[in-house]
């Protein structure tokens, strides 16, 4: 008998057929529902199906800043974690605010405990919404958090802002570095490296991939996050890169 006969009604073998799982449907409606809510709405579902927004901000969103001139010619969009947000600081003391000028609006998308993948997701939303493919009046400042952070959903369906350290430790360094590299290169290639300023506070990120480093010169009230002086110095570094690259001319 020809082998082809066996495959007349062929379809990709299910996990059940491969004896990997006990179910045929690999992506169930529940999986789609949980992931879509997490991805598009920043909502997590707990074990009893109750939905709650994922906590990203200490004192509410800081995306827009009252000081921004709505008619500013140029835009700086800042992405990262609590260090970008300015945890334990007033908004006016965070480095994104310190970048604002008459002709330059600055937006703060910092979200606590998130990783680079969340930042890249936010970048893609901003890129599309503000039509940055056509309007090349922007700069993205991306401050990379710990590279092991990644969006993660537990077996129960509970979504996390990022993977917990003990779970992250179960994934080897190769896959963490690959995850970082894929996001880094996707942005450079699809948006344009000239439009991105790459920073970090994690000294495990390879130096040759970075433009600036967010150094800790002083501490905020929680003794963990950068204080006023650190934000000020980081803002100056960003301004210097903008000047050197002649980005707003």
């Amino acid at each position, binding site marked *: 008998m020809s082998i082809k006969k066996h495959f007349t009604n062929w379809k990709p073998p299910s996990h059940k057929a491969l004896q990997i799982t006990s179910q045929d449907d*690999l992506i169930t409606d529940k999986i789609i529902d*949980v*992931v879509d809510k997490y991805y598009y709405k920043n909502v997590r579902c707990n074990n009893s199906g109750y939905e709650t927004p994922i906590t990203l901000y200490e004192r509410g969103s800081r995306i827009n800043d009252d000081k921004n001139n709505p008619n500013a010619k140029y835009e700086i969009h800042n992405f990262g974690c609590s260090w970008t947000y300015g945890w334990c600081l007033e908004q006016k003391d965070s480095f994104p605010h310190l970048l604002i000028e008459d002709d330059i609006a600055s937006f703060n998308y910092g979200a606590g405990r998130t990783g680079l993948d969340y930042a890249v997701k936010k970048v893609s939303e901003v890129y599309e919404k503000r039509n940055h*493919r056509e309007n090349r009046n922007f700069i993205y400042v991306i401050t990379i958090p710990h590279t092991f952070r990644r969006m*993660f959903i537990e077996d129960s369906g509970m979504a996390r802002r990022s993977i917990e350290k003990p779970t992250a430790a179960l994934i080897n360094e190769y896959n963490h570095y690959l995850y970082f590299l894929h996001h880094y290169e996707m942005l450079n290639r699809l948006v344009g490296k000239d439009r991105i300023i790459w920073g970090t506070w994690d000294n495990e990120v390879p130096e040759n991939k970075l433009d600036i480093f967010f150094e800790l010169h002083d501490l905020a009230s929680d003794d963990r996050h950068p204080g006023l002086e650190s934000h000020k110095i980081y803002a100056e570094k960003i301004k210097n890169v903008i000047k050197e690259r002649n980005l707003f001319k």
Partner: protein
Amino acid sequence: MSSKKETYSNKVHHNVDKFYYDNHRVRKSGKPQALNIYQNNNGKLEGGRQHDPIYNNENVGRQIYTFGCSWTYGWDLEQTQTFTHLLGDENTAVHNYGAGGTGLDFAVKTLSEVYMPESRRQIFIITVPHFFRRTWFDDDGVILRAWQVKEQTDINEYNNYYNFLHNYELLNRFVGRDKIIWGTWDMDLPKDKFDVFFERIDYTDDGLHPGPKSHKQYANRIKEIYESKR
């Protein structure tokens, strides 16, 4: 003398960079080897079908790039029988970036290598393989075969589906949904994310891959889609 930490990091970076930038797997012995993504590549990345034998004029108004796995490559078929080639004509150049055994993340990586943001002539056709395929390294820094990752790791379906969705949305948002035609042959993925389905109505000699009729049908469906968008 470098510290143990530095040495480790360098090996991590080396193995990952070899994959990401050169499409090579570094074996446990440290020896690099080309990924076996093209048929009869002899360990050298030979056999790629990026250059079409007939429809390869870089100056014509439509440049079609196809991405996916062996179904896009046209495993066990001549290049002129593949759906990519069948999309070509005097006004359309075609570039087949199909790579056997790979997943969507590999397609996204490859697309980012050829993408020209300023171009208005590029059209991308992405045929998504099994959603759970992905690039994954074992603890020795050797890349697993993408289709075996599910069996060899315990990544749950939530995270596999998230991985698909993230790559899918990033391309739509950065490149533009209007520039991409999404196809698949995996029936697990939500249909509302796709424009076209790659049906297997005949087989190649291996009894696994789509044959000439399937490719022809798929090419005709794709043509209908981009003609309707004009």
